[in-house]
């Protein structure tokens, strides 16, 4: 079997696919390193500016919480350019996304050039190009019969072919990865520390685990179908389905399948909520004024402030419901796309790199935990918590010929010593937590490997070698 592995590796190394894969791998991973360095520098600059700004302007009206830039987005970006760099936090837990850095909305959407993209698109295709002739090619030229006339068993042949494909793909993968890491370590030495090495190692293992699916798939179809050109056509069709169709169609499909209200329906409800929750309450206060129940400006303001506060709470809740609905829809899309091993690999990579929606969810949890500390601080210093929404309101009441301006209350700035202002600290999960998060995706990848391995062995046993 060793001889076959060596022969196969030698053949692959001399092939055109391998040479082009090496060139593409070095080119793409170099670009990945360069782009990551530029992006990380910019994100770090914005982060430092933001954090310094918060330290200098500690406020009881509103504060900003910044997400620490993650250098491991070079492995799996996880849509970082669409994630907010942090949140602005107001009293009563009002979180608003901070605007992202300069981003060209006129540009066509292209996926980030991270390791996950290079592996899931380019390497998976090249594994198929290396595997498609594995059995059918040998059958076409008659060498399969000769090989199997020796004492070599069919499953040994399959294993040898499989190992040679994986080892051949491993060379450009590891070479490319090293190039990328070298560029990052030289241009931005502070970005990568020793603590990220296990994550990078696991990412490489994950890549092999993913590529193994395509190797088994290639060998399965190659054993099942006699003609190499038909094998390649079938494999490319499956590749298109796995890599492009399933992950992308799930975005629109989730819209159709999920029962959450659309953004328009949510927006439509804002008007009636304002009417019922704000203006109806203010009208009631006005009625009480007209009935003579409230006579002083202070009493009127106290009542209107309470009305505005309660109304604002309802509006905040409405937006929270919408936000959660959008998240459910995005999760539904991600779950649907999990049918494809490519999506499973993408999500597992994001977990290992600690990027993507999970990182954002964790940050949001941290921000919510901090918001109660922040509220307590405001209560202690100002003595009163005033919640706001995206809206502010104003109206007027005339009492005894005097016009009283009633507007929604604003949080108050504490003018005294703020040296004990609570500091926000973002939690950083350890690798075990991230691996646990990736468990479902890893299980999915294992299942794909198992199914396709069984099918490949079954196909080669049934294969007519003549």
């Amino acid at each position, binding site marked *: 079997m060793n001889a076959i592995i060596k022969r196969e590796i030698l053949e692959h190394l001399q092939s055109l696919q391998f040479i082009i894969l090496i060139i593409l791998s070095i080119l793409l991973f170099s670009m990945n390193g360069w*782009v990551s360095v530029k992006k990380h520098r910019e994100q770090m600059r914005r982060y430092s500016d933001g954090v310094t700004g918060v330290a200098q302007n500690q406020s009881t009206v509103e504060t900003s919480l910044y997400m620490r830039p993650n250098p491991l987005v070079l492995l799996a970006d996880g849509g970082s350019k669409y994630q907010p760099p942090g949140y602005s936090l107001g009293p009563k837990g009002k979180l608003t996304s901070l605007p992202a850095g300069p981003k060209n909305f006129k540009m066509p959407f292209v996926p980030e050039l991270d390791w996950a993209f290079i592996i899931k698109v380019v390497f998976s*295709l090249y594994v198929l190009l290396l595997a498609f002739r594995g059995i059918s090619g040998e059958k076409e030229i008659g060498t399969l019969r000769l090989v199997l006339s020796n004492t070599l068993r069919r499953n040994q042949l399959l294993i040898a072919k499989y190992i040679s494909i994986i080892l051949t793909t491993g060379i450009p993968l590891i070479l490319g990865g090293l190039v990328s890491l070298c560029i990052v370590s030289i241009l931005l030495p502070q970005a990568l520390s020793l603590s990220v090495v296990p994550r990078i190692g696991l990412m490489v293992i994950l890549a092999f685990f993913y590529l193994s699916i395509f190797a088994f798939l290639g060998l399965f179809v190659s054993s099942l179908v006699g003609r190499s050109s038909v094998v390649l056509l079938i494999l490319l069709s499956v590749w298109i389905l796995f890599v492009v169709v399933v992950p992308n*169609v799930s975005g629109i*499909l989730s819209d*159709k399948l999920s029962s959450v209200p659309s*953004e328009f329906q949510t927006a439509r409800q804002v008007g009636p909520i304002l009417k019922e929750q704000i203006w109806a309450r203010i009208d009631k206060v006005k009625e009480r004024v007209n009935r003579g129940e409230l006579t002083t400006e202070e009493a009127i303001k106290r009542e209107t402030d309470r009305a505005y506060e309660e109304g604002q709470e309802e509006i905040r809740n409405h937006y929270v419901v919408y936000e959660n609905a*959008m998240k459910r829809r995005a999760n539904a899309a991600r779950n649907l796309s999990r049918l494809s091993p490519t999506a499973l690999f993408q999500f597992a990579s994001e977990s290992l790199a600690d990027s993507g929606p999970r990182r954002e969810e964790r940050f949001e949890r941290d921000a919510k935990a901090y918001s109660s500390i922040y509220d307590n601080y405001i209560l202690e210093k100002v003595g009163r918590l005033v919640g706001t929404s995206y809206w502010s309101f104003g109206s007027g009441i005339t009492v005894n010929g005097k016009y009283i301006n009633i507007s929604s209350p604003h949080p108050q700035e504490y003018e005294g010593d703020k040296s004990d202002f609570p500091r926000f600290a973002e939690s950083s999960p350890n690798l075990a937590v991230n691996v646990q998060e990736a468990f479902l995706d890893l299980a999915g990848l294992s299942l794909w490997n198992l199914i396709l391995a069984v099918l490949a062995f079954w196909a080669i046993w049934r294969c007519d070698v003549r």
Partner: protein
Amino acid sequence: MLKAIVQREILEYLKSSKFLIGLCLTVVLVVISTFINIGDYQQRQQDFLDAKEGLKKQRISVKIVREPQILSTLVQGRDRELGSLIDISYLYLPIQTSGYIGEYASQHHRYVCGFASVDFAFVVRVVLSLMVIFLAYNSISEERTQGTLKLALANPLPRGQLLFGKLLGGLFVVLGSLTIATLIAVFVMVLHPAISLDRELSLRILAMWGVSALYLGTFFTLSLMVSTIFNRPSVALLVLLQIWIVVIVIYPNLSVILSQHLMGLPGSEELEDRQRALFESYEQEYDKAWEAFSKMVDLGQRDQEIGRKWFEVCSQRTELFHRIDSEYSQQLTRQRHLAENMGLLSPSVLYNSVMQRLAGTDIREFDDFMEGVERLWHKYLELWALLYKDREAYQKSKHPEFAYTTQSAADCIVQTLPQWILLFLLSAAFFVVAHAVFMRKNVG
């Protein structure tokens, strides 16, 4: 003789399993994607109509909704991901649309951004181009390997004619498949009650068919060229697949990523600084007007002169700020142009830009919409000014109607002519090289 070659080629292609598999995959994907996209369009159109209905009574803060494009069912382009609503008043004039829930609360862009579209254009760009490669990769090399090329040329048949016959036969099959895919997509659209196709839309679909034919023709001539250059069909196929992955997957993405990093954009802080600097000379006047206006509101008074002053200074501020925003928007356009120009060598980039233009789902359509918004803002400015000059005239005045120039199919074709010509030149160049190589080829 040419007729016989063409007939033989067509028959060979039609009998091959690769043609059948490719055609089946194409048909299935076109039906599913068109069906899903029509459902999506129907929902967006319903939202648009409902939103428009609800916006009739607006006067001070004006909301404008963007209508989804019918042909987004075939070419999604940017139609879905760009927002649907824009809010303008004398206090603000944005350069970007948002989702229906408004600029700050909307998560519209974030949650849909990760998923690309699968539509008719995608099927042609990716699946049919692959099928074309599979059909043509062995058209010369395999005949040479099997020895039939030698036999065919032993007849009084000029080499050029043989190559031309192969081109015509192949194109007939490719264009036939494209026509089937197009007709199926149109059939699904026509049968759906949400879609009605008029003459203009039909013309656009016809132009889409034309540019798709040109795009697939480019891949066919490329495959023919590679097949004449390499003697072994397997090598020709591998070379073509490498070209395909570079041209379709890698190169278009790299051109966008490179342009983003080569041409930097100013940050929000820099833009705010520029706006502040431009408005500096009016700052005192603005502060004074604000002081007077807020005092008036606090006292519940209504002073026409204070209101007018406040309106004037605010609209001036909005106009000046918008000038900076417009410059920024132009920078965004320049960055996009750089990406497009860098990607010009890829037929995929050329094809995409023409298809999106024809479907009205490209950024040009959005820019036209935004120009319309700006024009409307100026009209409304006159109306709002009337509120402080002549209240009665203001109340009697009619709402300015929102309109923007939509280009006709003919205009779109004229605008995209350079891309059509480039695609044609690429096809011609590939065929000329194939011809030159084939004339000198050793057929033995």
